C-alpha cells in the first residue's frame, strides 16, 4: 500500500494544521501538493511569476518541510509558483533554502525544469511532433517563437526520476495535477487505473469531500484501487462527493488524458467504507502507442490602459448603451485624426458594469440599475500608444452629452489620473501535445544538497 498525504489543493491556500499532523502520524509515503494551474489566466506564464504571495507560500512551505521531516518521507510540489516556469522553480528553491536555514535543517532538493526552447518546439512543429488538442488555435513557427514562456506538463515518469535521486524535496516545474500523486503508487506497482483515478480525486485535496476548505486528504493506493480519507474533523467523503470531483475543471467526467495514456473511470465503483472514507475500484488505465506531453505557451497580445467611470444620472443609466455606442464612434474618429491610427491598429471596449459587462451579448436580464460602471479597456501595440488612446477617451467619459441640445453633463471618476496602465496583456496560444521518444527528453533534472 502507498499512502499519499495531500495538504490542500494548492500551496498558498493554507491547510488545516491539526489534520496535517493527523496525516503525518499515519506515516505517509509521500506528501504531495500542487503549486498552480492555468486557471488565473495567461499573465503568470507570460511573466513567469507566482500568483500567490511569497509570504503565504513561505509560511505554508516551511510547515510542509517540517511535516515531511517528521513523517520521514519526501515532499513533492508540482507546478511550482503557479505556472511552472524555470523562474518559478528557482523562486521556490530560494524560498526552500531560506526555510531550511531558518529551521537549521539540511536536505537534498531535486528540481525538475519543464521550460522549453521555442526554437526546438518550432522545429518539432516542422517534423510533425506537435499535434493539436480539441479546440486548439491555429499556430505556425512565429506563434511559437513569439511566446514569452513555453512549458511542457511532466507526468509520472519525470516525477519518479526526480524521486529516484533520493531527494527529500522535489520542486517540479509544470506537471499535470495528478502526476505528483500518481508517480509513487505507479512505481510501486499499485493498480494503474487506481493510481491515476485516486490522483485526480485527490488533486484538489479535500475538495472531493464535504467541508472542502479543510484541505487535508490522505489517499491510500493498493493493488486493486484506492481509498479516500479526508482528515479534517468535520470533513466526510461519500461516494457522491468523490465521483462528483471527476466533474471539476474537467470537460469529460469519465476520461482523463495524461502523458503516456488515458484514464477511463466509466466502470469505477464507489463504496462508502464508513461515514468518512470511500473505496474506489474498477478504473482502467490505457497505455498510449506514443508518449506525448501537453504544452502551454503565453505571448504578449498587446499593452493595455484601462479607465473606470461611474454613471448615476437616471437618464444616462437608462440610455447607457446608446451613450457608449456614440462615444466609441466619436473616439475612433478622434484617434484617427490625432494619432493617425485605424480600427485594426488597436481595440477599445466600453463595458457597462451593472448591465452586461460579464456576459456581453449572452445577457438576457433587463433590470435598470441605480448606476452603471463604465470600464474602458484599451489594447494597443505598446503602452505609450494605449495610454494616449486612453487620454483621448477621458473627456468623453467625463462630459459627453447624449444629445447636443442638453447641458454638459459630468460623470464620476474614482481615480486621478483616470488612465491606469496595465502593462502587457498576455494570451495562451498553445493547446498541443509534443511527442517524445523518451519521457525525459523535454525535461531537466537538477540535484542540490542544501
Amino acid at each position, binding site marked *: 500500500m502507498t499512502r499519499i498525504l495531500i495538504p490542500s489543493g494548492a500551496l498558498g491556500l493554507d491547510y488545516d494544521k491539526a489534520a496535517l499532523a493527523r496525516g503525518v502520524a499515519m506515516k505517509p509515503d509521500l506528501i504531495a501538493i500542487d503549486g498552480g494551474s*492555468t*486557471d*488565473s*489566466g*495567461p*499573465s503568470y506564464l507570460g511573466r513567469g511569476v507566482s500568483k500567490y504571495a511569497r509570504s503565504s507560500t513561505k509560511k505554508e512551505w516551511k510547515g510542509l518541510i517540517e511535516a515531511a521531516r517528521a513523517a520521514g518521507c519526501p515532499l513533492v510540489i508540482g507546478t511550482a509558483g503557479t505556472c511552472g516556469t524555470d523562474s518559478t522553480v528557482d523562486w521556490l528553491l530560494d524560498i526552500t533554502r531560506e526555510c531550511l536555514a531558518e529551521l537549521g535543517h539540511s536536505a537534498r532538493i531535486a528540481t525538475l525544469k519543464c521550460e522549453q526552447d521555442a526554437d526546438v518546439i518550432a522545429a518539432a512543429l516542422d517534423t510533425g511532433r506537435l499535434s493539436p*488538442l*480539441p*479546440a*486548439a*488555435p491555429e499556430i505556425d513557427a512565429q506563434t511559437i517563437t513569439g511566446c514569452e514562456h513555453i512549458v511542457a506538463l511532466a507526468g509520472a515518469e519525470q516525477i519518479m526520476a526526480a524521486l529516484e535521486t533520493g531527494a527529500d524535496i522535489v520542486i517540479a516545474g509544470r506537471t499535470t495535477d495528478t502526476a505528483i500523486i500518481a508517480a509513487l503508487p505507479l512505481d510501486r506497482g499499485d493498480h494503474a487505473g487506481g493510481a491515476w483515478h485516486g490522483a485526480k480525486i485527490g488533486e484538489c485535496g479535500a475538495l472531493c469531500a464535504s467541508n472542502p476548505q479543510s484541505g487535508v486528504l490522505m489517499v491510500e493506493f493498493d493493488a486493486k484501487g484506492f481509498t479516500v480519507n479526508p482528515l479534517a474533523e468535520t470533513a466526510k467523503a461519500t461516494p*457522491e462527493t468523490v*465521483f*462528483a470531483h471527476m*466533474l*471539476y*475543471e*474537467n*470537460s*469529460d*467526467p*469519465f476520461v482523463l488524458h495524461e502523458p503516456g495514456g488515458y484514464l477511463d473511470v466509466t466502470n469505477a465503483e464507489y463504496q462508502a467504507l464508513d461515514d468518512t472514507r470511500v473505496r474506489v475500484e474498477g478504473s482502467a488505465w490505457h497505455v498510449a502507442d506514443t508518449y506525448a506531453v501537453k504544452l*502551454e505557451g503565453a505571448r504578449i*497580445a*498587446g499593452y*493595455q490602459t484601462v479607465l473606470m467611470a461611474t454613471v448615476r444620472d437616471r437618464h444616462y443609466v437608462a440610455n447607457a448603451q446608446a451613450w457608449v455606442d456614440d462615444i466609441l464612434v466619436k473616439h475612433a474618429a478622434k484617434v484617427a485624426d490625432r494619432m493617425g491610427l485605424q480600427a485594426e491598429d488597436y*481595440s477599445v*471596449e466600453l*463595458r457597462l458594469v451593472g448591465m452586461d*459587462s*460579464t*456576459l*456581453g*451579448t*449572452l445577457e*438576457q*436580464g433587463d433590470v435598470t440599475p441605480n448606476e452603471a460602471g463604465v470600464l474602458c*479597456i484599451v*489594447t494597443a501595440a505598446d503602452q505609450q500608444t494605449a495610454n494616449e488612446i486612453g487620454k483621448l477617451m477621458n473627456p468623453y467619459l467625463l462630459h459627453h452629452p447624449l444629445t447636443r441640445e442638453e447641458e454638459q453633463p459630468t460623470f464620476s471618476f474614482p481615480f486621478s489620473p483616470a488612465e491606469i496602465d496595465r502593462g502587457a*496583456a*498576455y*494570451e*495562451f496560444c498553445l*493547446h498541443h501535445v509534443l511527442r517524445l521518444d523518451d519521457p525525459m527528453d523535454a525535461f531537466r533534472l537538477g540535484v542540490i544538497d542544501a
Partner: protein
Amino acid sequence: MPEIGKVARKVRSKNAGPFWLTIDIFCGDPKAFAQISQGLSTDRVATALEADASTIKRFDIAQLNVIKISLPRPVVQGHASDRDMHGAAWASVIAELEIN
C-alpha cells in the same frame, strides 16, 4: 415553467483548461434530474450560449443526478475580449433558462 436554477440544487461553471468551459447542473434528486434532463435540449443550450450545438459535449449522469455540459470557450481564457477569466458566469445563463 420554472427556471433551471429554481429546480436544481446548484449550477456552476468553470474553465476546463484555457480552451474549454464546463457547466455542471447538480439537480439534487432523481425527479429534478428527469425534469431538467428532458426539459433542456442541447440545442437550447447552444442557442443560449451562442455556441455551435455540434461542439457541445453533454453528459446526463443519473447516478449523480448531474447534467454536465462542456464546450470550447467562445474566446480563449484571458484574451483581450474575454470578460470572465475563470468562466464563472456561464452558469447563470443556464440557471436562468426555463425548463420546457
